[in-house]
């Protein structure tokens, strides 16, 4: 059942802010991240990468590298057997090029040596003969007939004929009669937008340690958002059985979607297999930028019609995304999310993905949604300006609500958009005065949220404390929130619960930590596991008391007689039941395995004030407030943390972050110096307002919160800057040269 019979809303512990269980390890430097682990006899792996955006690999001569003292293994594309299925094959080819280098930074060979210095020296001895091919970097250029073809024969059946071979997929969503809708409009605004590719920018580069024996068994330690996914895809690439590969997720130094796939893990496994020794690979920062997943870059046209009183009559968007050198489905999600915040009679979105000679896209927080919603919310804001309407009132007037047929098809159940908009309207930020050269922007945001495959095991120690074994790397404080939900359900103090993230041999499959799923799905499974353990405890106590199991009940962390007829027994606490468990049938555990559905969509509204320096085009963010529906904030600190962190990533995307390519197709800014993520002094406080509109699909009403916050900032900032500057900005990032240019063009 995805719709819960009963949603609990009164809590003793959920909603409090206890210290996180991994806190002390992380503030003392003890926490072990991807690069922090070593093994006896360990070798260092290094990857040689293509300096060309697009080139045929004619030959690779590794003899000199192999002959260097201290080198224990060299691998190239020839050392990998490509999996049958398209998904894994693309991942494999991305990890190690086969016959062609498809982007600047594409791996072409790797070595394992006794030290990092020897491995580096060996890379210089590898001779790769390339035939440089024409390249294409921009999505619109890639879609044009006659563009250099990144990979031939990759188009899905849904792509109409006659387009560039780079176009791999097409999608269309929506309902209603567009022409009739636009006829009803008093004003129609049509605009084209562009957004640059941005990188997740996690501070910890990818790192792994692989140890593979001659018997085909292997252990892999790595920083990942999903150790089970790493196992499946590495096993497929290595031709192994999943159970023979044990993957342990280290502490993870940020992911944001970028660690939902593999880059160096299969390479380390292949090197380890060849060398017969453990191999560690740690990416350098330039490798992270050149060869791991940024998000798509996009080119978008939006057209919206509105009546004089602010009702949207028709809306359409054409989205062209590029996820780099491989087919990519992100545009599907952008096309579905674009108009999710609106209740529309006539709406249509069209999406296209085209390949370019850029690294393979990896998910980035609400993948595909920020770009589309940026374009839509910019046009809505411009309509409000043209019609002299309050942008918040217009959103309220057109807001999707329960019963709205969403732009992507389904009819919405309970959603929190209206309440979120009303909260923004009531907040003092919305009416605070603005000074000269200042502007206020707002935007709605949306994300679907997912559940997915989840296993939780809960074990009661004989002393009455509880361990929870789950399988999702903790990227935002989930061990704290899972412990809280377990403590709540069991009626024991939070500090009696310890949650650990297990390796792939220790618990059943868990989907990746993605889709804002962990607090929802692992939380749900934890609550169910606790209820399973409670049922077992009730049965034990019934046995002790010599009464029927249905004559006892669980209340406030103890088993009680179910009523006066059950007999007079003093209640038995969890600790007492655990202590006697060897005598009553053995250790007590609860577990739950599920493919969770019913995650419940999430909406947010962001409000921002900026000041634009008319002489330099510099933007200063003055005030920022995030409003978001969390269903139930299990640990409010970490809900706020998601809202603040997502907002700031979005601010970076709006103002400064971008992949910059030269004419030669090489990435020009593969470092934190010129890939400019926000620094502390760029920002004001990020104020947060959490709303709690229960999700009917979770026993405590929880919704995922992690992804939605990156969606609104792009348009919120763009709207604020456009209002402050008096000119509409349509390209991200809105770097100072772009803003100054727009100001001068305006005169």
């Amino acid at each position, binding site marked *: 059942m995805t719709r819960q019979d009963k949603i609990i809303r009164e809590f003793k512990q959920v909603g409090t*802010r206890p*210290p*996180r269980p*991994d*806190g*002390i*390890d*992380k*503030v*003392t*430097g*003890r*926490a*072990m*991240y991807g*690069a*922090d682990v070593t093994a006896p006899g360990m070798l260092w792996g290094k990857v040689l990468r293509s300096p060309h955006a697009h080139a045929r690999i004619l030959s690779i001569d590794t003899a000199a590298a192999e002959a260097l003292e201290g080198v224990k293994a060299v691998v190239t594309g020839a050392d990998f057997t490509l999996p049958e299925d398209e998904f894994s094959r693309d991942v494999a080819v991305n990890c190690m090029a086969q016959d062609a280098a498809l982007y600047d930074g594409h791996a072409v060979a790797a070595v394992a040596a006794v030290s*990092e*210095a020897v491995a580096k020296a060996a890379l210089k001895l590898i001779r790769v003969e390339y035939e440089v091919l024409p390249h294409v970097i921009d999505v619109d250029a890639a879609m044009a007939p006659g563009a250099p073809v990144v990979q031939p024969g990759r188009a899905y059946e849904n792509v109409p004929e006659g387009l560039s071979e780079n176009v791999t997929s097409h999608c269309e969503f929506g309902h209603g009669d567009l022409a009739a809708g636009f006829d009803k409009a008093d004003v129609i605004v049509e605009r084209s937008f562009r957004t640059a590719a941005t990188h*997740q*920018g*996690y*501070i*910890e*580069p990818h790192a792994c340690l692989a140890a593979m024996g001659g018997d085909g068994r292997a252990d892999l330690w790595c920083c990942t958002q999903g150790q089970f996914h790493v196992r499946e895809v590495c096993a497929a690439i290595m031709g192994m059985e999943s159970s023979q590969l044990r993957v342990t997720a280290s*502490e*993870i*130094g*940020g*992911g*944001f979607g970028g660690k939902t796939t593999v880059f160096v893990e299969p390479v380390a496994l292949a090197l380890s297999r060849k060398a017969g020794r453990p191999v560690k690979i*740690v990416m*350098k*920062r330039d490798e992270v930028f050149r060869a791991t997943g940024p998000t798509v870059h996009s080119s978008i046209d939006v057209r919206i019609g509105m009546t004089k009183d602010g009702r949207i009559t028709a809306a359409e968007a054409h989205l062209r995304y590029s996820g780099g050198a491989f087919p990519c489905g992100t545009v599907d999600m952008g096309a579905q999310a674009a108009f999710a915040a609106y209740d529309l009679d006539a709406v249509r979105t069209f999406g296209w993905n085209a390949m370019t000679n850029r690294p393979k896209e990896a998910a980035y927080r609400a993948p595909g949604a920020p770009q589309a919603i940026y374009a839509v919310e910019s046009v809505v804001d411009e309509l409000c300006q043209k019609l002299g309407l309050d942008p918040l009132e217009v959103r309220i007037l057109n807001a999707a609500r329960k019963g709205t047929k969403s732009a992507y098809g389904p009819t919405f159940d309970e959603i929190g958009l209206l309440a979120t908009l009303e909260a923004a309207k009531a907040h003092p930020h919305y009416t605070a005065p603005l000074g000269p050269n200042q502007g206020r922007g707002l935007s709605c945001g949306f994300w679907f949220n997912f559940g997915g495959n989840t296993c939780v095991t809960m074990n009661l120690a004989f002393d009455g404390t509880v361990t929870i074994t789950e399988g999702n790397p903790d*990227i*935002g*404080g989930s061990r704290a929130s899972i412990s809280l939900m377990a403590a709540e359900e069991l009626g024991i103090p939070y500090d009696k619960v310890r949650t650990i993230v297990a390796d792939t041999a220790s618990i059943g499959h868990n989907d990746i930590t993605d889709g804002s799923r962990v607090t929802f799905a692992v939380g749900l499974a934890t609550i169910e596991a606790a209820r399973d353990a409670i049922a077992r405890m009730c049965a034990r106590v019934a046995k002790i008391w010599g009464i029927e199991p249905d004559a006892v009940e669980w209340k406030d962390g103890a088993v009680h007689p179910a009523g006066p007829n059950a007999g007079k027994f003093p209640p038995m606490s969890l600790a007492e039941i655990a202590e006697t468990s060897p005598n009553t049938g053995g250790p007590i555990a609860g577990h739950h395995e599920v493919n969770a559905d019913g995650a419940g969509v999430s909406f947010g509204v962001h409000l921002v004030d900026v000041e634009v320096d008319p002489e330099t085009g510099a933007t200063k963010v003055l005030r920022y407030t995030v409003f978001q529906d969390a269903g139930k904030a299990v640990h409010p*600190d*970490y809900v*706020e*943390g998601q809202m*603040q*962190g*997502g*907002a*700031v*990533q979005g601010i970076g995307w709006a103002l400064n972050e971008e992949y910059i390519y030269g004419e030669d197709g090489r990435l020009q800014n593969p*470092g*934190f*110096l010129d890939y400019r*993520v*926000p*620094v*502390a*002094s760029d*920002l004001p*406080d*990020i104020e947060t307002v959490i709303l709690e509109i229960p999700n009917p699909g979770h026993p405590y009403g929880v919704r995922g919160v992690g992804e939605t916050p990156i969606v609104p900032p792009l348009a919120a900032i763009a709207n604020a800057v456009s209002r402050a500057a008096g000119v509409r900005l349509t390209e991200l990032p809105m770097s100072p040269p772009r803003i100054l240019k727009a100001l001068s063009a305006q005169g």
Partner: protein
Amino acid sequence: MKTIPVSTKVNGDTVEFLCAPEETLLDALRNRLGLTGAKEGCGSGDCGACSVLVDGRLVCACLVLAAEAEGAEIDTVEGMAAGERLHPLQRHFIDSAALQCGVCTPGILVAAKALLDHNPDPSDEEVRYWLAGNLCRCTGYDKIVRAVQSAAAEMRGA
């Protein structure tokens, strides 16, 4: 390649190691001394995850040669707590939820301590500018600034 013997003090303890001439202090701390609290986020001084003190001065360990540590005093995150007693900054970072993934946290704690050692009562703006070289991608910095300020207040006895 000739290795260089280095004798230095790390968190108050005298240590000796051999290093390659081009090896960074960060690599020596992590790979030779087993002190993996300082992280390599960039190798170019742009992220601050490897922040340590050398002779009381805040630096990026990735931009110091290990050989330069000869005779120096080095302080890392591993030396901040006195046994099981956490430094107020460490405690407030946990209590104020000023960390999520935590990979930038060691560098930020070392940097924040250096700030409070010379300016016990900084403004929010001073905290933000001092920490501008410490990138955090999870928190948006808000709770980090709060945690530094509450630790500063406690340390001032306010």
